[in-house]
Structure formats: structure tokens, C-alpha cells
């Protein structure tokens, strides 16, 4: 009896956090989080979500969400007391930032925790596409080397013109890495960055015409939805490659499929898609496409860093201290 009483007391003293998703850090860190916060986990309850939210609405001031919660906006509408939304992603495109700003809800995100990992993956995908690493590994492991002889020649990276779309933290990490490979960097961004000397383009098509590869490093919002369309792909050209480790919807996927099928661009490295986890079947037949299952941020190290950041943000909130990684609304909304 005494033991149960103690446990109940402990739980009541822990700050309450409503969890939606759940975010991927739960895979490893659920127990750790439960020791610091009283977690409300709607998916463990038999009652419908709306009812669950209504029951806890008054006491719920903090929400922890992943990026795949499409119903986040409707959930927040049922939670009048929320003051903080912590998302485990870098891209806050699943959050109605306008509404959060209006309601005075702070949003904390993954900030620069993943920048290096995403940059590493974007670079890795491009090296793979150009040097045919996955294809050649497959060729060898299916026993074809002694049978078919030398693998077909690939394409050199050095000297290639890299067009980065979005020169935020991730874009700058990509640029830094590829400069060391002897590539020439240019970029398109909402505004020119005075601190960098790379050539700046206001127009994505013009960037594409002057690039051998386009690497998408921008956020998904109203302005960037289907930013990469037929016109841009046409400008990129037959020798051009596109790398996307940002959001699937930045590319007009139907157009991309057509261009790849018809050989109108040379290849693609894709970590994200418009309808994950579904990928266009037509692309599976092409060996100049390298796929990745939205795994740009999923390394053990980043998971730990993200956990530390999520906890840090929640603890800061509950002790009325400044958030560690607040979303600056102006950066994401225009």
C-alpha cells in the first residue's frame, strides 16, 4: 500500500506532457522520459483521441509531437491550456505556426541537432548516385563481377557545380563538405547571405541552369511547395542530378518520375517522398536513383542529442526559463 502511494505521489509531482505520434525518440528513450515527466499517451488508451484530449485539456500545457502527426492542428484546438509544443523534427511544417503565434503558444524544435547528419546524408546520396556505390555494391554482392567483368564507369564529383536550395544551417554544412571535394557552390535562398561568398541566385531555374546537381536544403512551406517543377528540372538538364533530404513535397514528384523515366535528368538521390512510406514504383526500376527511407536524422548519436534537447526544452518550460531551441516564427513564416 505504502509503495503504491509513493508511486502515485511521484507521478503527480512530475510535470505533465501530452505525447502525440509518438516521436521516434520514444523507441529508445520512453523510459527515461517517463522518469522526468508524466506522459499522457493517447495511443495507450482505449477511448477515442478527442475524448482523451477533452479529459486532459485543462491540465495540458505542454505537447510533445513528432512530425508525422497530421492531426496536430485539430488536437491543439481541443487543448485551450497549451503553452508549448515541442516537436522532434527540424521542419515545423506540420505545425500551424500562425495559429500558435496567435494563441501565444511557443514552439520548440530540433534546431541544429540534425544539421550534420542531414548534410552527411545529402552528400552521401550524391556520392552514391554519381559513383554508383549502391548499384556497384549490389552488382558485386550478387556475384556479377567475375561474370560480367568491370563495372561501367561512373561520374567524377570534383569540379561539379553544386546548386544548394536553402542556405540555412543544413545548406551551409552541405556546402562546407562539398567544397572539400573540389565542387563549386552556388545557392538560392529567400535572401542573400552576407556572410558567405558563394554566388547567389534569386531564381531556382537560373540556379538549375548553372548547376550539375541541385541539393534541396530548404524548409517546406507555401512558397516551397513543388518548388522543383518541370521548368526547374528542364533547366537542370540531362546531365543534372537532384538530391532531396528535405521534404518530399518540395518536388513535383510526378514530374520528377517522368523526367527520370525519360532520361531528361541524369539521376536522383531521395530520402523523402510526397506519400511516404510509398515511393513511386516506376523509380524502382531505375539504377540511377538511390533511395533512403526518410532516415536523414536517424543516427544513434542524433537520437541521444535530440532526447537531451527535448528534455532540456521541456525542463526549461516547466521552470519558466528560456527555451533552448525556440522556433523564431519570422524565420519560417512569410
Amino acid at each position, binding site marked *: 500500500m505504502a509503495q503504491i502511494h509513493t508511486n502515485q505521489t511521484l507521478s503527480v509531482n512530475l510535470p505533465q506532457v501530452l505525447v502525440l505520434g509518438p516521436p*521516434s525518440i520514444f523507441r*529508445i528513450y520512453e523510459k527515461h522520459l517517463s522518469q522526468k515527466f508524466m506522459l499522457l499517451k493517447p495511443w495507450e488508451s482505449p477511448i477515442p483521441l478527442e475524448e482523451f484530449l477533452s479529459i486532459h485539456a485543462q491540465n495540458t500545457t505542454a505537447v510533445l509531437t513528432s512530425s508525422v502527426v497530421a492531426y496536430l492542428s485539430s488536437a491543439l484546438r481541443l487543448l485551450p491550456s497549451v503553452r508549448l509544443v515541442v516537436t522532434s523534427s527540424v521542419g515545423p511544417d506540420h505545425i500551424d505556426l500562425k495559429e500558435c503565434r496567435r494563441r501565444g503558444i511557443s514552439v520548440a524544435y530540433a534546431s541544429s541537432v540534425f544539421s*550534420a*547528419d542531414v*548534410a*552527411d*546524408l545529402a*552528400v*552521401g*546520396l550524391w*556520392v*552514391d548516385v554519381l*559513383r*554508383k*556505390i*549502391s548499384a*556497384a*555494391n*549490389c*552488382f*558485386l*554482392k550478387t*556475384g556479377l*563481377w*567475375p561474370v560480367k*567483368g*568491370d*563495372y561501367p*564507369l*561512373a*561520374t*567524377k*564529383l*570534383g569540379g561539379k557545380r553544386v546548386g544548394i536550395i536553402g542556405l540555412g544551417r543544413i545548406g551551409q554544412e552541405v556546402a*562546407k*563538405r562539398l*567544397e*572539400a*571535394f*573540389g565542387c563549386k557552390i552556388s545557392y538560392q535562398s529567400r535572401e542573400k547571405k552576407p556572410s558567405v561568398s558563394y554566388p547567389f541566385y534569386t531564381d531556382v531555374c537560373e540556379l538549375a541552369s548553372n548547376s550539375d546537381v541541385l541539393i534541396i536544403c530548404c524548409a517546406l512551406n507555401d512558397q516551397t511547395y513543388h518548388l522543383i517543377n518541370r521548368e526547374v528540372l528542364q533547366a537542370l538538364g540531362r546531365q543534372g542530378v537532384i538530391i532531396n533530404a528535405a521534404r518530399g513535397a518540395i518536388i513535383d514528384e510526378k514530374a520528377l518520375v517522368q523526367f527520370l523515366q525519360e532520361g531528361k535528368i541524369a539521376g536522383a538521390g531521395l530520402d523523402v517522398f510526397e506519400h*511516404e*512510406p*510509398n*515511393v513511386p514504383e516506376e523509380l*524502382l526500376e531505375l539504377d540511377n536513383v*538511390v*533511395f*533512403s*527511407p*526518410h*532516415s536523414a536524422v*536517424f*543516427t*544513434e*548519436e*542524433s*537520437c541521444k542529442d535530440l532526447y537531451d534537447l527535448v528534455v532540456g526544452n521541456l525542463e526549461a518550460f516547466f521552470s519558466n526559463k528560456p527555451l533552448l531551441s525556440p522556433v523564431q516564427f519570422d524565420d519560417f513564416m512569410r
Partner: protein
Amino acid sequence: MESIGVLMICPMNSYLEQELDKRFKLFRYWNIPQTQQFLKENSNSIRAVVGNSMAGADAQLIESLPKLEIVSSFSVGLDKIDLNKCKEKGIRVTNTPDVLTEDVADLAIGLMLAVLRRLCECDRYVRKGLWKTGDFKLTTKFTGKSVGIIGLGRIGTAIAKRAEAFDCPISYYSRSEKADTNYKYYPSVIDLASNCQILVVACSLTPETRHIINREVIDALGPKGVLINIGRGPHVDEAELLSALVEGRLGGAGLDVFENEPEAPEELFGLDNVVLLPHVGSGTIETRTAMADLVLGNLEAHFLNKPLLTPVV
């Protein structure tokens, strides 16, 4: 120069082959059924040999070509050429340095990313429809990992420069410490392996560096360590590497070269922490063309009594 006999040891590049055919009297060694007979009949007209990383000019071949003046290798590695024999007989030797440095270094980094971030496995995961059943597992971050380089020559230096852009601390082992670098030097390969997470072989293959990666070095690198080999297969004791990977005593490997190409150890085919490539280090259209031009340029320079472009001997 069309009467000058050039012996090409094996198929290596169709552009090179065509050009050699145009400019010289080309003999294709791999098409010859009775090599001893052929050599008896044609050795007096053969003044040049063109080899590559697979086959070059050993003592026996050199002895059987009394008019041999130059061996031009379609590679930077010289392990298939008996250099001492060439020196003894006054035979010139050229290779293809510099033009392939960047490609090989790019591939070394590509292998590191492919192994740590499981690029090939992820590609396979999506292609087989497994993403619909759930997310891929967590992989290992590459940025910031310590990289140890064996051999800080042209290729080793290029690898270091690239890895630095990923914030990787760089250390190296070389026959002697280099004065003009800030990278940390270790006086033995085992010391290097004990102090890095990713170990790259980037030195030339000589009798001294054969099996430079042995059991002790593999143990020092350990279950979280990754071995990258863009040098030569015989740099690594392949049997030891195999058992270490299969038993989980080594964290992973990215290999572009093997002891007995084009054979590669089948036991490694099913391991998701191992990326295997069919010796493609310099295998880009641009670089192979540049290498071919160097071979041709060296041969022409020699037969026109001009200074060789990239002489070794």
C-alpha cells in the same frame, strides 16, 4: 610510330586500346592463346608494355622482351611491376599519379558514409518494399568520427582534407612523420588503429606493407571500428578480416579492393555493415580518360626522345 610494338597486358579501357591501336602496333596479350610461342615470335618488336592494377610486367615477362624500353602503367600503383628489374635493365616506368587522386579520395569518403549510414542497405530496404513495414534502424553518425589514415601521400592527404570538412579529427601512420602537417602522427599502425574509429588504407603496396592490416590491427580497431581499403587487396589479411567481420569483432568495412580480384569473399555478401565495390576507385569517365591520355603521352614522349610526363623509374 606505327611499327613500334606495344604489348597491352589486359583489357582496361577501350579509348586507350583504340588509341594504342591507331598510333602503334598493338598486341593484345589477353587474346593470345600460346603466350610463349607469341613471345618467341614477336619479342623483338615489342618496345613497350601497358599494364594496370591487375597485371603489369613481372621479371619473367621483362626477361622475355629483350627490346623492352618502357612500361607505362594505367594505374598509380606499381605493385605489379618489377621495378628493380626495370632499373637493372634501364627500362623506363611511368604511372598515372594526380589525375586519379580526387576520385579515389571521393570514393574513400563515399565508402565511409555508405558503411556508417548504411546507404546501400537503406536503398535496398526501400526497393524491397520494407519501408512500408516500418522505419529503418538507427545508423551511425559520420561527422566527428576520428579518421586514421595509413599513408599520407597524395591520396591520403586528399582523404584527410575531405574528412576534415566533416569535422573528423585526423591522425595518420606513415614510414616517417611529415613535417608539413598538423595531423597527429602515430609511429605504428596498431597505435593508429587503437586511436581512431575509421581506419583507411591509402599507402602503396610493397613487400613491407603486405598484410599491414593483420589480426592485431583489426583487434585494435575493434567492434566499433570501421576499415576502409582503397589501396590494394593484399594490404589486408583477408582471412582475418573475414572472420573478424563475421564474428562481430570489427564494426564494419568498406572495401574497393581484394586479394584475388574479381573474386571477393562470399561470406561478406550478406553483411549489412560491409560495402563491397568492384575496384572502382578511379572508375569515372573523366579520370580514366585522363589516365589513358597520360599513358599515351608518356609513350609518345619516350619514343620522341622527350622528357617523360610521369616517370617513376
